[in-house]
């Protein structure tokens, strides 16, 4: 158990102030908007939970939510194992590790609107490498016409864009495992798989938890890339939650319902992250106790 020390608050205070300064006021404004009908800056009417009820009944929203959850799950199922594999196969030292690190990190550094634009050209069957290559091997592919292709292209783009985040975190986690652990495993004659299962995975648990939560919440709020690539189409195939929110807020310019929507959106992410976080912590603790046996 960690020792109780209330003075630790002093160490946390700067962080608390930095974040609270920019977070609490805006959140209060949004809560404020969500319970009012804003007719003009001077005329507003208190409407209570009306907007919330209206948003909850919206059947388009239910569809967008379902699409969003499916997409985020797919993102986690592909990117987390792929990222771990990548972290394990990256060279540990020397010039090769430097070169691989830089190449892996490149996709993270491209502004999100450019990512969408590049894939827009990259995926076109007439002028793009990916589209042309798929055409060549005989696969009918069009991300603008076929909703399954569009969905898969957005997923592939996200995997390309964000797997490096998981890999870099995992890689840094692996690098901070002391040699002594590997030596002990060697003396015990542990297999490669056992080393991964009982040393590397538990030691990466902390960083992997961050990776899972980050990827989950960021994919749940994905906006720019699919908006640029497909515009949400064809049909509604790639209209995810935040794009639906933006359509609502900008298209109809209704601050009240948009604010209520944002709050519900926020609460859904909060709830799902909370469940994920607690689940991973439980899994993690049983892991370490097994490893200690």
């Amino acid at each position, binding site marked *: *158990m*960690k*020792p*109780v*020390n209330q003075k*630790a*608050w002093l*160490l*946390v205070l*700067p*962080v608390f102030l*930095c*974040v609270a*300064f*920019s*977070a609490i*006021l*805006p959140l209060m404004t*949004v809560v404020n908007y969500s319970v009012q009908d804003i007719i003009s800056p001077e005329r507003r009417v208190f409407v209570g939970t009306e907007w919330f009820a209206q948003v909850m009944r919206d059947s388009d929203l239910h569809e967008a939510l379902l699409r969003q959850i499916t997409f985020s799950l797919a993102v986690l199922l592909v990117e987390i194992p792929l990222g771990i594999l990548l972290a394990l*196969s990256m060279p540990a030292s020397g010039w090769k*590790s*430097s070169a*691989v*690190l*830089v*190449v892996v*990190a*490149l996709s*993270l*550094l491209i*502004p*999100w609107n*450019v990512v969408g*634009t*590049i894939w827009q*050209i*990259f995926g076109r069957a*007439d*002028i793009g*490498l*990916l589209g*042309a290559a798929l055409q060549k091997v005989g696969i009918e592919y069009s991300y603008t016409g076929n909703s399954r292709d569009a969905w898969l292209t957005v997923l592939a783009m996200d995997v390309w864009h964000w797997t490096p985040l998981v890999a*870099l975190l995992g890689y840094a*986690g692996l*690098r*901070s495992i002391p*040699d*002594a652990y*590997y030596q002990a495993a060697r003396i015990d004659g542990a297999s490669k798989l056992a080393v991964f299962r009982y040393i590397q995975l538990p030691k990466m648990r*902390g960083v992997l938890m*961050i990776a899972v939560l*980050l990827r989950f919440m*960021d994919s749940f*709020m994905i906006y720019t890339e699919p908006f640029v690539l497909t515009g949400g189409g064809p049909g509604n195939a790639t209209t995810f939650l935040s794009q639906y929110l*933006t359509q609502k807020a900008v298209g109809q310019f209704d601050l009240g319902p948009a604010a209520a929507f*944002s709050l519900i*959106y*926020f609460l859904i992410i*909060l709830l799902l992250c909370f469940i994920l*976080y607690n689940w991973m912590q439980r899994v993690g603790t049983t892991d370490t106790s097994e490893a200690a046996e």
Partner: protein
Amino acid sequence: MNTTVMPAPMAGTPRSASKARGFVLQKRTLFLVAYLLFAVLPIYWMVMMSFKTNEEILSSFSLWPQHFTWQNYKTIFTDASWYSGYINSMIYVAINTVISISVALPAAYAFSRYSFLGDRQLFFWLLTNRMTPPAVFLLPFFQLYTTLGLMDTHLAVALAHLVFNVPLAVWILEGFMSGIPREIDETAYIDGYSFPKFFFKIFLPLIKAGVGVAAFFCFMFSWVELLLARTLTSVNAKPIVATMTRTVSASGMDWALLAAAGVLTIVPGAIVIWFVRHYIAKGFAMGRV
């Protein structure tokens, strides 16, 4: 500090274990090469687009430019409104990264070493600030920074980006710090180290992989953020990501210019990761502490 903290490491090098794994290692290399290819191809396409003209991009498929041109890069380097965007971005990203890491380090230490009133709640609350769709914050931020008279300054963007970078840095650093056994702290105090000396001389080198990754991610997230940066600036601090949106105009999309700007946005980040790579790549051997 010469004390051995971990169960005493046995003699011999850790490398000899890998001899029997030749086959596995080869499969790994194959996988790595395949992934790197996948990672590089879209970037290759972007680089090639930046050396083409718009007509060439849209007219036909070619693996490399048939009519090679530097024109897109010339436009960016000769137009002040383009290149000042890079400078503005670098200024606020640097301010943001420095503030984020320096406030996050003591906080992450507190979270990983002590329990105090509301620690778990506070820790999770920090992360909740990354869960709000940023569009929600635009109007309130605009009002807040106008009131403070910070509009169109680098500081405004740097402060606004703290909302998502500080929680990230705290979480990453806490993850790495929790991996360091508490016995290290105790041994250092017994050896007569003061807290600052212990923190900078012993503790920080142990988690430098974490610091490197956290700093890189703070840089990256602040570098590519568009909505807040665009809302809080107009001329003096206008970032490159906002300048780029100019390539979409009534006369259509300037694909080639956008691709060139995209290539140039990668460069500063690639330099940053080149400098922090040693922190990330080389871990530490605790037996040698």
